[in-house]
């Protein structure tokens, strides 16, 4: 018994002396499930030895901050604008200009040359025409609190990326002169929650649609299509008055990586037009690199024109978001 104890502590001491497992390139990414499998397979086929760590966006963000003194990741891939901006501010990234960056529109690059965006993801309001006639569909996000939509839409957990973004998209419409959300805004949100079906997990989200209760989907574009496909129903995306929040996901190389060359090679490969187009063909994600979009299937190109963007300054919102979410969680829900 004491022997095993001694062995264990010896093992711990030994292991902590060599904390890093060298070898594969470690990539932190919120892309999970079949997407992660696809990325891993394609990267391997292209000769990149990678290891993916998947988790929710918020969780990955916390983890990257926590690991600040002993970073495990070499590359961060697919986190949204606000998260990438804050991580950059913490000094976690290093500058690198990928081979595909030259053709990238300026608004998808940062001044420091650290974060490069490769997708855009609209957070859409969509409806199921067989449940809700076209004429009765809402025209704007602000229509949701009307009585006729009571119990017809589902709000996901605030820990998820998507709800955070559309909630922010709604609240920015109610900013007063001081940049604070007005009482009117909070009243709107209270009503939005009071009328909603609430889902804390993916199962109950899907269940709300399966049971036929929900007919409006507040989702990211790909998620909305996927849900419709799983349900075997037709979904229509609304090009809302006031615009739709559009996020873009970026990639960056960690400042502390010990595999810089491999990291660079991977980033070059990942953002290239062919890979982006292949991903678009597989999952319908809209690439922002013009050449990649041109190579993407027509349906994807069409998606790129589906909605007009809501003008949102994500960098300005990022620091306020936590406070808003706290108020929602503690007072409103």
């Amino acid at each position: 018994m004491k022997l095993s104890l001694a062995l264990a502590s010896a093992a711990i001491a030994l292991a902590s002396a060599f904390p890093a497992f060298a070898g594969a390139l470690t990539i932190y990414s919120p892309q999970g499930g079949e997407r992660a499998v696809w990325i891993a397979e394609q990267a391997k086929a292209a000769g990149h030895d990678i290891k993916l760590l998947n988790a929710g966006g918020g969780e990955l963000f916390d983890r990257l901050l926590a690991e600040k003194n002993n970073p495990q990741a070499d590359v961060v891939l697919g986190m949204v604008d606000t998260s990438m901006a804050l991580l950059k501010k913490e000094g976690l990234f290093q500058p690198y200009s990928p081979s595909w960056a030259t053709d990238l529109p300026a608004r998808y690059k940062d001044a420091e040359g650290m974060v490069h965006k490769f997708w855009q993801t609209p957070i859409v309001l969509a409806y199921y025409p067989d449940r809700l006639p076209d004429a009765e569909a809402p025209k704007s996000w602000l229509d949701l609190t009307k009585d006729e939509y009571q119990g017809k839409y589902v709000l996901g957990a605030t820990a998820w990326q998507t709800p955070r973004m559309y909630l922010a998209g709604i609240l920015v419409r109610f900013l007063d002169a001081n940049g604070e959300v007005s009482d009117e805004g909070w009243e709107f949100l209270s009503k939005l929650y009071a009328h909603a079906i609430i889902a804390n997990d993916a199962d109950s989200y899907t269940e709300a649609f399966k049971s036929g209760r929900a007919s409006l989907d507040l989702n990211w574009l790909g998620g909305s299509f996927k849900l419709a496909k799983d349900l075997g129903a037709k979904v229509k995306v609304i090009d809302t008055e006031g615009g739709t929040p559009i996020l873009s996901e970026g990639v960056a190389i960690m400042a502390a990586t010990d595999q810089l060359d491999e990291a660079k090679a991977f980033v070059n490969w990942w953002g290239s037009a062919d890979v982006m187009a292949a991903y678009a063909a597989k999952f319908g994600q809209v690439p922002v690199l013009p050449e990649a979009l041109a190579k993407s299937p027509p349906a994807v190109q069409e998606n790129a024109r589906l909605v007009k963007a809501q003008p949102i300054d994500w960098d300005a919102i990022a620091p306020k978001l936590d406070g808003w979410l706290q108020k929602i969680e503690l007072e409103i829900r």
Partner: protein
Amino acid sequence: MTRTAGFDRLLYWFGLIVIAWAVLTFLLVPISAALHAALFRHGGLEIVDAVAELVSSRRVRAALWNTAWMTAATIVTVTIVGMFQVAVLEYFRVRGSGFLKVAFSTPLVFGGVVAAAGYNFTYGPGSAITAALTALFPSIPRDWFIGWFGVLFAHTFLMTSFHFLFLRAAMRRVDYSTIEAARSMGASELTILRRVVLPVIMPTLLAVTLLTLHTVVGSFAAPQVLGGRDFHMLSQMVLTLNSLRRPDMAALLALLMGMVLMGLILLSQYFEAKGAYTAGAKTTTRIQLRQIRNPLLRTMVHALAYLLAAIYLVPVALIVLFSFAPASSIGIEMLPSTLTLTNYARVLGGGTAFVPFFNSMLMGSAAVVVGLAITLFAVPIMVRKRNWLTQALSISFFLPWIIPSILLAVGLIVAFDAPNPLVGNAVLLGSYWLLPIGYVIFSLPLMVRFMRSAFIGIDPAFEEAARAMGASGPYRFRRVVLPLVAPTAILVAGMKFNTLMAEYPLSAFLYNVNNRPLPIAIVEGAVSADPDQAAISLVYVTLIMAFSLTVILIAERLSLGRTPETSNL
């Protein structure tokens, strides 16, 4: 003699120093780091603000109230169900008690998120039972089970493990001659139960109730999965606050819970001491099962017992059944129309689905072994030598019980995110080892709690006899004491292993690329809309349950028919 004794002493001191170091490094430092980080987050103490924010939050107040009344209600229902189980298994003669025993033992291996999901699967809006109910009575809403009722229901049937383990053992210790004496004096069945049996098992019942109370107050999975939008409890609030980046409020709420829980632990130790005092080592007549005379009553007891067994077994059976179903039928069919082994092949075939399973098996067993080693070394010392030092050690071991695991995870992260001299200036965060270390810490309280009782229950004459025959301390421990506590050790190892396989908060915070554990995979499977993932999760859960149940049944076998002291509480 002097040479080996000297070596033993050396080992003893070495062990003590290692444990002191481990407690300091992995318990006290992380917990104080977490509290410090939480309470002094902007450089100053802002408790007043945080408290004000907590108090003014409608949902925090609701969570407090919900937790309070749910705890009270659960204690009542769990006690009723638990006592009924014990009566059916150990007091009355009921047909098929072997089967009932297996059914009633399922909470030992079916708990946490897994069980809550299983209940949702069985009674939730998409379940066969709901479909049947709504077909019969269209006025019943599909989410009839979701809300406080579902939570109370799940609590009632999932929190009887302590009754199953300890109250049953206490019942077996009742001196049958006292029952016969009472009967000869004309006492009715009810009077005997109330006046003769109950007082004997009362100390155990109190200890068991306190343990259960502890479990309810910290309940997370049941309200999270089954509570719906209107019913939430404190531990959910702690998690929410933490994810809202308000660790200060989370810590304060956690501290409040912690103080209640610490009080409960101290109370239970008090009752334990009292119980040990009254339970002398006197020979008693073994209790004999009572035949229920009244045929109506007998039928009713049988019906209730089997209904209870069904409630226990149906969720488990559905999970096992659907683990053999094609992925496409999960959530679509009420009962699988065809069965297949593909899901198992995918998990056990060594592919990507096997990796988290392997990781968790490895880390879980390592954590349980190390935890047991620490417990088996420290607890006898704590039991034998009662001074402020061992008292402090014992309280330290219980700390992870009163600190929510999220706070513990945060503490471990804060303590080891930079070079720490206590571990040779290594940065443990991000390494393979932080998660298994977290698992060990997380396992200690229950292990210490159970093993304490086991060690206290050993008749000191055994050790004395061995000493008189010349056995040295380590030899006595190995040959005499260890076999006596082995059943308890195996039991608690099995239970803890089972929880580790489904432990979410610590896992989520501490895993790294190389040790992605099962709970993460299971939750991802649940979150992902991919039916294949769901199927694989069911296989995981089935395998874990089968494994843990085997371990626990081995423990039960080992302890059968001897020294009920070892299952003393």
